[in-house]
Structure formats: structure tokens, C-alpha cells
């Protein structure tokens, strides 16, 4: 599956140094040094582990009592309140961008797809960890159904929540997009995803830190680069605070 995507992946890797160059102009040689170190970490991680190497999975009795709600804990709109009250029957997840066959899916549509359940650890950039069971379809199924075009290098996740008056969003490359543990979770520990954890849908990107795991998911977008998306750094925290785009460190 990922091997079909090899060319896409190589194109994505080629696009990253270009992003690093625009960073150099912004932040000078120190910023450039940081970006180089970050890309070395990513390269080393990818070289040491197989592309589809799995994050560890745990037994049910190893789960933590809860998963802390962090960042956005709700979406502060009347529309979201209404959706929450009626069980998200009107929620739509779009798959769009550089795809041959755009999709608009309901929660029921997602339930009808093959489901994957995994007990994994959630590591926050702040330092804490929680372990929980997450269920939902693999992102790769949606991408294959939508038929991602060759020129797409990244997958962007659009979200309903806002923080500091900005829309939350995140992005990953094709290696993580097609990783078998990358799922769109609609259940946490066997129950519908709670509000504080991103109801009704959130991403699981198991080999990266928590801020990549976009909550309150509304759209999945295939793009060539993120130059035109908000501040162009590929994510909410990346734009707001210069957080690392590769969050596997």
C-alpha cells in the first residue's frame, strides 16, 4: 500500500527542504539549524523503524483510568451543542482536495467501513501519557476510496474547534497517512468519543505527539503543500507557537 505511494512520498520529502528554506528567511541561521535537526530526527526515525512499524499496543488492563482532555475541550458554537445533543446524526466528514472522488460521509457511513480497534498510548508534548482503546476506520481506506492524486504530498485535517481565535488544523505526510494504525477514531474505550476528547471524530497518529491527533474532525484534505493554508506551517500549534511539524521527537 505505501509502496504504491513511494513517488508521492519522495515528492513530499523534496517539498520539505523548500519549507525549511522559507523558514530560514524568517528566523535566520538558528531557525535553519533547528529545522535541520528536526529533519535529521525524522530521517533517523524513518531509517531505524520500518515505514509501517507499529507503535506499541497494550492489554485492556494496562489502560489508564481516563484520557485527559487538553487544548480544545469542546466546540463553542450552538451548532455543535445541537449536534452533541442529537448524537451527531448530521455530522459530515468530507474527504477532498487532490482526490479523484471527493467524499462526504456521515458517522453511520464511517461505522459501515471495516473497523480497527487498538489500545495505544497518547503522549502529549507537555510530557504526560494516557493509554486507551480507540476504534474507527483506517485513514488509508478513505484515501483509497477517494483516490488520492499523484501530486498530493500531505494530508490536512480540518477541525471544528477554535483556540485563540484560530481554526485548529493539522497535517501529516503520506507515510503516516497510510500507516496501519492511523485511524479516524469515533470510539474511546468502547463508548462514543467524549466531548473533551474530540467528539464525534478525532485522528490517531500513533507515532507522533498529541497535538497531531486533530479533534472535532470535519474534513480530510489531500494537498501538495501547505503554503496557502493559514500561516503555512502545516498546523495550528506550528503556526501559533512554532511547534515542530514533525512531532515524533
Amino acid at each position: 500500500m505505501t509502496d504504491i505511494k513511494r513517488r508521492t512520498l519522495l515528492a513530499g520529502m523534496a517539498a520539505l527542504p523548500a519549507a525549511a528554506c522559507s523558514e530560514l528567511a524568517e528566523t535566520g541561521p538558528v531557525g535553519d539549524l533547528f529545522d535541520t535537526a528536526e529533519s535529521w530526527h525524522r530521517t533517523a526515525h524513518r531509517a531505524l523503524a520500518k515505514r509501517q512499524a507499529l507503535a506499541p499496543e497494550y492489554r485492556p488492563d494496562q489502560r489508564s483510568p481516563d484520557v485527559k482532555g487538553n487544548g480544545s475541550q469542546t466546540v463553542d458554537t450552538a451548532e455543535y451543542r445541537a449536534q452533541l445533543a442529537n448524537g451527531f446524526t448530521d455530522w459530515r466528514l468530507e474527504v477532498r482536495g487532490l482526490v479523484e472522488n471527493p467524499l462526504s460521509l456521515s458517522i453511520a457511513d464511517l461505522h459501515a467501513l471495516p473497523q480497527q480497534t487498538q489500545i495505544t498510548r497518547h503522549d502529549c508534548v507537555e510530557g504526560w501519557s494516557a493509554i486507551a482503546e480507540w476504534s474507527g476506520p483506517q485513514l488509508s481506506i478513505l484515501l483509497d476510496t477517494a483516490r488520492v492524486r499523484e501530486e498530493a504530498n500531505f494530508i490536512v485535517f480540518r477541525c471544528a474547534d477554535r483556540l485563540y481565535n484560530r481554526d485548529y488544523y493539522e497535517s501529516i505526510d503520506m507515510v503516516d497517512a497510510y500507516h496501519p494504525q492511523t485511524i479516524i477514531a469515533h470510539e474511546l474505550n468502547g463508548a462514543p468519543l467524549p466531548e473533551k476528547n474530540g467528539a464525534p471524530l478525532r485522528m490517531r497518529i500513533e507515532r507522533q505527539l498529541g497535538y497531531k491527533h486533530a479533534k472535532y474532525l470535519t474534513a480530510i484534505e489531500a494537498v501538495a503543500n501547505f503554503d496557502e493554508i493559514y500561516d503555512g506551517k502545516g498546523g495550528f500549534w506550528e503556526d501559533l507557537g512554532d511547534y515542530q511539524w514533525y512531532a515524533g521527537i
Partner: protein
Amino acid sequence: MIRKPPRRHSLLTRTWHWINAIALIVLFMSGLNISNAHRFLYWGNYGYDPADAWMTVMRFPAWITIPQRYDLAEARDWHSTFAWIFALGLLTMWIGSLISRHFWRDIATKPSDWSLRSILQAIKEHLPGSSRIEDRTYNPVQRIAYGIVLGMFLPMMVFTGLAISPGIEPAAPWLVDWLGGRQSARSLHFIFSWALFGFVAVHIVMVLASHPLKRISHMIAGGPRAEDGTND
């Protein structure tokens, strides 16, 4: 051609010593900034509730952190950049010390080095007023201290640091298991960083206690060459 006798400190030792010193300072100070993001330490694989913490860490003031304000993203940039310098430097030092036999000659201890008598003798000779400094090799206390730092404290910083990275774990899940889980690895990272801080503090006091300028200049210029081959 006759090779000149070696200096007290080889070029590798001196270069690594100062690069490592800078890396440790940046890693320590940026690490204190990162610690401020979640000041609670846990054992095992998970931990997020302060009620489960085995330790609540103090909030480190801005003047002691890099950068000099709370900024988790920039602190992580400094930390993960200097981690490369630190880890590759340590690897180079280990390989170089094994090849040049510096490790076996100067750092590996003999059973007699661990006797109370030889330890007391080493401390006595280091006290202010003692004229001894030109030894080609390290005394038993130095061998033990440098051995623990090179063989345990510094490598454990690398191993525990790697174990905290979610991107490393798929490649080396055994590393996290060996350390007792991700939150245990994070706790050990903190503990060994303070163990190193303790070593550096004592190290600086010891240098200042006896011939500080001479010792520092030796670590820069290499110090005197061994006069004869007996110590080599």
C-alpha cells in the same frame, strides 16, 4: 620518526570536553523549560494526573531556562538540536577512547583503586597545598567518577531521551520496556540530569580547589607531555 610522547589530555578528550560542556548546559537549561510544561513525574507507562505523581517538580525560574521565558516549542528546538551534538559527541568519545586505549589506560579501574586507602590518598593529594598535578593518568577517585559519568550517567541521558520520543519507540520498543515504560523513562531522564548536575558541581569545585588555572589550561592546550614512557 620518533613520536612525541602524548600530552596529559588528548586532542579528542579536550575537544569533546568543551563541546560536551556546552551541549550539557544547553540541554540542561532547555530541559528545565520543558519540565515546566508538566511538572509531575510518574512511574510506569502512563501518567497525567498530578495525584498519581511520585514527585512534583519546582517551577524553574525563567533566568535559569533556555529560552529565558516559558516557551515549550523553542525549548524543544534547542533540546532536540543539541541532543544530536551531545549523543554523537559521546559516541565519538567512546569509540576514540576504546581505539586509543585511553579508556583502558586512564579510566578503567583496577581492584586496588576501590580500596579506601587509595581513595583517601587521592583525596589527600588533591587538597589545596598539594603540589601534585602532573600525573599522566587519573587517580582512583577520578577513574571511578569519570567511569560512572561516561559509562552510566551520559549514556542513560541518551537512552532515556530516545525512549521518550514516540517516533523512536516503533524501532526500539525494547528500550522503553527496559526502562519500565515511557513515564519511567521520563522520570529517569530527570533523575540522571540532576545526577549529572551534581557531578558537574563537584567537578568544578575540585578544579577550583587545586591549581584551577593550570588544570583549565591543560584541558585547553593539552598539558605537559609525558617525560618518559613509563606512564604510557
